């Protein structure tokens, strides 16, 4: 395959004009990423700080009042007080509270007898197990705190206390791992969805036939599609990183050049997949449908960006190894939250490289020089 720089430059220039003049590609490359970043960064929050908790206090004793005060004082709980159990149950059903703590009339008496735990009832909404767990553990925590405060003299019943420390994301802000993950979704959209349209568009509009009747070579054709969209993807990436770190305050602990390398490799496979779909279907609509199913959905569902891979069924876990977004998400989360942890990064880099080579190679092989295949 020979390569003429003049022809390649002419084709790249043409492609760039088309990108710049097509409002939808600018929308997808620059507006959509910011939108997604903000949705994942602020709209979605997997932390359950300040859960709404209803308290039914049927016991007027000192012990009960103190527990209620402790619950109200907790930074994780927004408590609302009532003495009607039915009213609170209704609120739970409506979802206006996430859990209900019921202190029976014999609570104080039982606590004095040392049976406090038996007198407190916690109702949570099992339909949302994640939130229910949060509620349960927060209430548990407050309960333990209260017991410790109640008996300051004889505190520390056991010799050990547990001090949890979360590494890499010490405040466990979910934004810090959701934002790097959402960057992988954005890069998938730009890489695969946008390019899935570009070759098919040439077929649909009849320009491919005109191009193929000129001395253009296969390599020029392929590179002229890859280079402009690679640059567009990199520009969008730079914007994402700036927004994430400067606006959203997400830490970036790894170095920029590793980030550049990882992104380049991932874009390689995303572009390859998009172009392959575009080249083989020759139809923008079908290619975009395939790109959504084959790239976008796996990037969300199977990359470990929202749903942890280790909690998936084994068969699905096996499938995730085929999804380049998996390695990209892992590398991004490592780079943003932990820095250069080379054992993790090297594995991811290797698989991204293999994947890019596979998809680009396949595209090169399928790129025609004639209308009937090769």
């Amino acid at each position: 395959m020979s390569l003429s720089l003049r022809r390649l430059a002419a084709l790249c220039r043409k492609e760039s004009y088309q990108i710049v003049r097509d409002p939808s590609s600018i929308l997808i490359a620059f507006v959509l990423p910011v939108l997604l970043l903000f949705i994942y960064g602020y709209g979605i929050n997997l932390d359950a700080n300040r859960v709404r908790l209803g308290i039914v206090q049927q016991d007027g004793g000192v012990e009960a009042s103190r527990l209620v005060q402790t619950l109200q004082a907790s930074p994780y709980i927004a408590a609302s007080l009532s003495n009607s159990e039915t009213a609170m149950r209704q609120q739970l059903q409506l979802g206006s509270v996430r859990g209900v703590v019921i202190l029976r009339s014999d609570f104080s008496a039982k606590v004095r007898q040392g049976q406090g735990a038996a007198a407190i009832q916690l109702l949570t909404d099992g339909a949302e197990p994640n939130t229910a767990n949060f509620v349960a553990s927060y209430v548990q925590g407050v309960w333990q705190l209260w017991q410790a405060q109640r008996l300051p003299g004889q505190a520390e019943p056991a010799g050990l206390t547990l001090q949890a420390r979360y590494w890499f994301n010490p405040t466990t802000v979910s934004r810090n791992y959701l934002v790097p993950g959402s960057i992988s979704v954005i890069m998938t959209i730009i890489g695969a969805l946008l390019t899935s349209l570009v070759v098919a568009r040439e077929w649909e509009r009849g320009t491919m036939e005109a191009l193929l009747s000129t001395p253009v070579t296969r390599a020029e054709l392929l590179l002229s599609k890859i280079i402009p969209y690679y640059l567009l993807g990199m520009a969008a990436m730079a914007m994402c990183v700036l927004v994430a770190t400067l606006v959203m305050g997400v830490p970036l602990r790894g170095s920029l050049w590793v980030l550049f390398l990882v992104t380049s490799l991932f874009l390689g496979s995303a572009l390859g997949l998009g172009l392959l779909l575009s080249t083989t279907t020759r139809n923008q609509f079908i290619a975009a449908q395939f790109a959504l199913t084959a790239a976008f959905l796996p990037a969300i569902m199977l990359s470990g960006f929202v749903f942890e891979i280790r909690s998936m069924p084994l068969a699905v876990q096996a499938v995730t190894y085929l999804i380049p977004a998996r390695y990209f998400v892992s590398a991004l989360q490592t780079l943003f939250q932990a820095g250069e942890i080379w054992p993790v990064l090297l594995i991811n880099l290797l698989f991204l490289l293999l994947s890019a080579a596979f998809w680009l190679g396949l595209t090169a092989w399928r790129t025609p020089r004639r209308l009937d295949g090769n």
Partner: protein
Amino acid sequence: MNPAMTASTDAIAIRLQAVSHTFAGRPALCELSADIRRGVITGLVGPDGAGKTTLMRLMAGLLKASAGSICVEGLDPVSAGDTLRLQLGYMPQKFGLYEDLTVLENLRLYADLRGVTGQARADSFERLLAFTDLARFTDRLAGKLSGGMKQKLGLACTLLGSPRILLLDEPCVGVDPISRRELWRMVSSLADGGMAVLWSTSYLDEAELCGEVLLMHEGRLQYSGSPQALMDSMQGRSMLLQDIVGNRRQVLQRALRSPAVIDGALQGHAVRLVLREAGVLPDLASLQAGPDASLQRVKPRLEDAFIDLLGGGPGGDSPLTEHMPPVRLPAGVDAEAVIVAEQLTRRFGDFVATDHVDFRIRRGEIFGLLGPNGAGKSTTFKMMCGLLPVSSGEARVMGLDLKKSASQARQQIGYMAQKFALYGNLSVAQNLGFFAGIYGLSGASQRAAVADMVRVFGLQPFLAMNAGELPLGFKQRLALSCALMHQPPLLFLDEPTSGVDPVSRREFWSHINGLVDKGVTVMVTTHFMDEAEYCDRIGLVYRGRMIAAGTPDALKTMVASAELPDPSMEDAFIALVERDDRQREAT
């Protein structure tokens, strides 16, 4: 000297020997042998699906032939593709332009791709922009050009690098007759300079002007050689029956029953006939064309010869005529105005697509809207079908106001859309059932209506086949039967026969003529000039306005002059459009 140069001194630029091509087992081209010479325009002529595009792609090296040999400049177009691509200019359908690039950017792109640089580039840009008269529009986006200007830009991009062979695939589709003539002049001058030009078209009147033609039908070559020689071979067989008194459609029908006649068509007030044998005339008395009627010899057309090569026309009797009951108008509907447009206007933002158009159509009349693409005839048409809201003015069919009772009005209309609008992945039977259903037929009446249509149009063998796989002529039959299922008093046809072979077109019009005799009123849009001859009256639509209306003969008389005493429909069209342009400029 390299081999390509020595070969080029030869008069033959492309030689085809027993070329065949199949797509997934289906034959597209069959044993085709022909030579394409330099210095003339060779017409590649045939209806859609004849194999024209396939043949062009084979010559351009874009496809590899399944069998046979192709020699372009003495070389094989696939194995010597790299050499040939510089000597061959190929303009695909839709011209291969990037619509989001400007005129100049398109030119630069193709100049870079064809290796035209430096001074040669500046020179050829100057020459081509002057040649195509596009110099004023270099900064305009190609997508914003008119059809004719796109066509010229497409040609300019193809001519970069001075190819020795020019392949033009249907360069005149969607282009108005004025631009068509202009392109023809430009390409003729190229051929005069020694270029080999292959020009594909489905218009036989366009093909008559070519130096040589390859006539194709269903993948086979029917004739190759000079169109004049072919027309000369028909000498004495083309006749015009003039001064007819009475119903000329019935005269045509009777003439086609005569064994002496193989083909016939309406031409304004006259009837044009092709005889089986020169000198053997049909019995004039049996035609019942009136006392003054006379048969006169006329110049044969390429279409006459093509239909003769295909074994003659389809005959004039339409089984549909026996099937359809005569149309009776409900009380209160004026038979002189079953379709009425008054000051009909449609605006899209600032753009006025239809501008104060008036017409009224009688019961049993064929009214044609004739005009170039983008003139506004489809917009007018869609408003009359109730498919597009009216901005201002009146549109009425069968006394029903389309602004108030569009759906009631639609029940009165049989509508056959451009490209037939069939469901390609439903079978013929399913399509018939579906269209019967949407016109409100169900149960026994639906079965009866479908069975009638199957019998009338001979669709029985195709019932299980998907509509998308039907040959074009049968698609047209199916579309017509779907539109007629509910026996509507009005029939609206949008570009009904574009791309269809002449025999199928004849057959189609024999059905329409039969319907009209039953009192069905027909409104048709077309850009085929000879199709316009079938109409009782024509409205000429140009830039949103109806610039002229009248019988075909009246329109021709309007432009007749000393140097053009007997103008064709196309001459009339061009003269009237140019007259309108001058008037608009003057005001």
